[in-house]
């Protein structure tokens, strides 16, 4: 059965097996596109999953009567989903440590400049902000060997992610968090809203923008509150360790 007939059958019957047959036929496009974006700090498997989901959504939305080939239609659709993922979800860092730290600094600087100017900063702007050369910024962006910031660092029992540690990279107390009990103790007295913010940002690993949308506030508000909460956590941890 050719594509036209398959899409026609799916439109008429809504049969999921037909949709899946179409999706499987074009799954190679999801794979190809995931590979093309895999060098940006997100693992191929994650991108492939996103691309495959976008493919299925694309099958639902495709209108063959418009005369465009499905492969032509689906490529920008999948590309858009992948780019959205980069913008909204990626929390990644390169290894080794020196590169990972630089990546984190670049990310922080980029966020700060974006908040200030309202647009994505160039490597030059970030270089000026971090007092580094443009080449160092570009090289760090290009470097391979990446891991998810949400990956667990150390033993499973410790349970801390790269992100949790990097978020507190200037924070001597939080770096000494050994388990979640200590964290919970430090969060006593936090309001439901404050806990929700931390849960969205560090539990669900949402971006500040996404967190703001979920909470119905501005990104600036999230940024400020997050900074204050991390300060309070640090202070509470200091007190906890002193007791």
């Amino acid at each position, binding site marked *: 059965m050719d594509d036209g007939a398959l899409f026609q059958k799916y439109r008429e019957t809504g049969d999921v097996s037909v949709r899946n047959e179409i999706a499987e036929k074009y799954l190679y*496009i999801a794979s*190809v*596109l995931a590979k*093309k*974006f895999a*060098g*940006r700090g997100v693992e191929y498997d994650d991108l492939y999953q996103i691309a495959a989901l976008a493919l299925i959504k694309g099958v639902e939305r495709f209108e063959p009567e418009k005369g465009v*080939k499905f*492969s*032509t239609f689906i*490529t*920008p659709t999948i*590309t*858009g989903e992948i*780019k959205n993922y*980069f*913008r909204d979800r990626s929390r990644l860092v390169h290894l080794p440590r020196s590169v990972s730290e630089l990546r984190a600094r670049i990310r922080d600087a*980029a966020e700060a400049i974006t908040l200030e100017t309202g*647009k*994505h*900063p*160039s*490597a*030059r702007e*970030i*270089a000026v902000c971090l007092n580094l050369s*443009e*080449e160092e*910024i*570009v*090289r760090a*962006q*290009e470097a391979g060997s990446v891991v998810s910031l949400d990956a667990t660092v150390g033993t499973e029992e410790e349970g801390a992610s790269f992100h949790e540690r990097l978020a507190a990279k200037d924070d001597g107390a939080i770096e000494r968090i050994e388990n979640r009990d200590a964290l919970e103790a430090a969060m006593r007295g936090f309001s439901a809203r404050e806990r929700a913010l931390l849960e969205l940002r560090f539990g669900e690993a949402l971006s500040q923008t996404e967190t703001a949308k979920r909470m119905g506030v501005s990104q600036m508000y999230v940024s400020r509150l997050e900074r204050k909460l991390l300060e309070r956590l640090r202070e509470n941890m200091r007190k906890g360790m002193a007791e």
Partner: protein
Amino acid sequence: MKELMLLKVPTAGEIMTTVRLATGGLGSLTGLGLEESEDCKVCVTESLLLLRHAGYLAASINFCEDDGLFVCIMGEGEIVNPAPMPEDEISAALLEALAADVKTEKREGALYRVSFRFAR
């Protein structure tokens, strides 16, 4: 439009990382955001792949500053064993999805020039 760099490179896969690094550097030089620089790298790579499949063993890449980065990639030398691939269609759609002002030109029925732009 100010010419920044003209590279003549083989379209072989092992040269792609070098080209990507150069593209990233020029993206920085012309003030592109990091995201746009990454997209530009993809577009340069895809263009080289398209030209390789069209039978070009080498290509020239002309990078120009024009309120961002304008890139023009042309096949160089004789066409040898052209082997269009099904993925070429994806490459073309990807270029359209990522870059602005994407233009392709053919010579004697075969692709020989790709150009596109990334705004600052």
